[in-house]
């Protein structure tokens, strides 16, 4: 059990060819585009959801920040759909790989921060010192704020990776426990099975929440900097 517990997190290759590219591209198949006013049910549902999310998330941003709407909406769609597809049996979830999440978090965070430094230099630098701090504390506080700034992309990536990986591992473990307990004591197996069902419901919620949190935080960093 120890070896195959982590086997589902290995990057899928087939005969040396990166299958992972196809898996990362697969969610795009599920979001068709259309130029019509009235579409089929799938596209109408997706458009309604996208409008709901974009209105809620982009309304707090300034007009300059709202130019990021396409980027942030693609981000939440990608992370949400990838996480949800990872809950299907035997599938591979790209967002469990720290490399991928760092690749998403660092450019977005850096873009927001550099935009802030270029366009509103004084206000961006002012973020490093909260209002009303006593004078002796200033050097230490600037250091702490700098560290807190530079940890933002790492925290974004690690948060997503850890949440999704932990959820998948728990499902594997509790599922294996249910299977092993069935021959020993059926009642306990039943209780474990109920725990598995509750966990799966939780994982569906976590999949969507993590996408939302990632995108929300990027939009907040953007709000600070535009």
């Amino acid at each position, binding site marked *: 059990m120890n070896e195959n517990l982590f086997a589902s997190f290995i990057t899928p290759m087939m005969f040396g060819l990166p299958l992972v590219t196809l898996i990362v591209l697969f969610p795009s198949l*599920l979001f068709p585009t259309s130029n019509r006013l009235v579409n089929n049910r799938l596209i109408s549902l997706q458009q309604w959801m996208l409008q709901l999310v974009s209105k809620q998330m982009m309304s707090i941003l300034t007009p300059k920040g709202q130019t990021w709407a396409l980027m942030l909406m693609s981000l939440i769609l990608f992370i949400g759909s990838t996480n949800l597809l990872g809950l299907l049996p035997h599938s591979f979830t790209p967002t469990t790989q720290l490399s991928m999440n760092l690749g998403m978090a660092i450019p977005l965070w850096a873009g927001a921060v550099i935009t802030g430094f270029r366009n509103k230099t004084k206000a961006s630098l002012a973020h490093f010192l909260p209002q009303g701090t006593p004078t002796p504390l200033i050097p230490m506080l600037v250091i702490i704020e700098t560290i807190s700034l530079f940890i933002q992309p790492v925290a974004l990536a690690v948060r997503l990776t850890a949440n999704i990986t932990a959820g998948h591992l728990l499902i594997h473990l509790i599922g294996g426990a249910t299977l092993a307990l069935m021959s020993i004591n059926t009642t306990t197996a039943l209780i474990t099975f109920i725990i598995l069902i509750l966990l799966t419901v939780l994982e569906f919620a976590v999949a969507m929440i993590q996408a939302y949190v990632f995108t929300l935080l990027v939009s907040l960093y953007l709000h600070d900097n535009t």
Partner: protein
Amino acid sequence: SQDSKMASVVPLKEKKLLEVKLGELPSWILMRDFTPSGIAGAFQRGYYRYYNKYVNVKKGSIAGLSMVLAAYVFLNYCRSYKELKHERLRKYH
């Protein structure tokens, strides 16, 4: 009888797969367009065939999406069969 003779002389290249006779199958396969744009065209045709039949209809149901997800699960199972076959229920592993 003249009409039936003319109707059977359709060039092999333009016949669809189900109209090709079994003896002509190897030559039909070799005549297909295996250039990158040909393969891309084949994928595009397949995608739109599925999309227009099951999704892009007035009252599309959950079956259109579910069949895609079922195929995805099946392909992932095939991909990881090598590791999964060790997890069969056996007395001794």
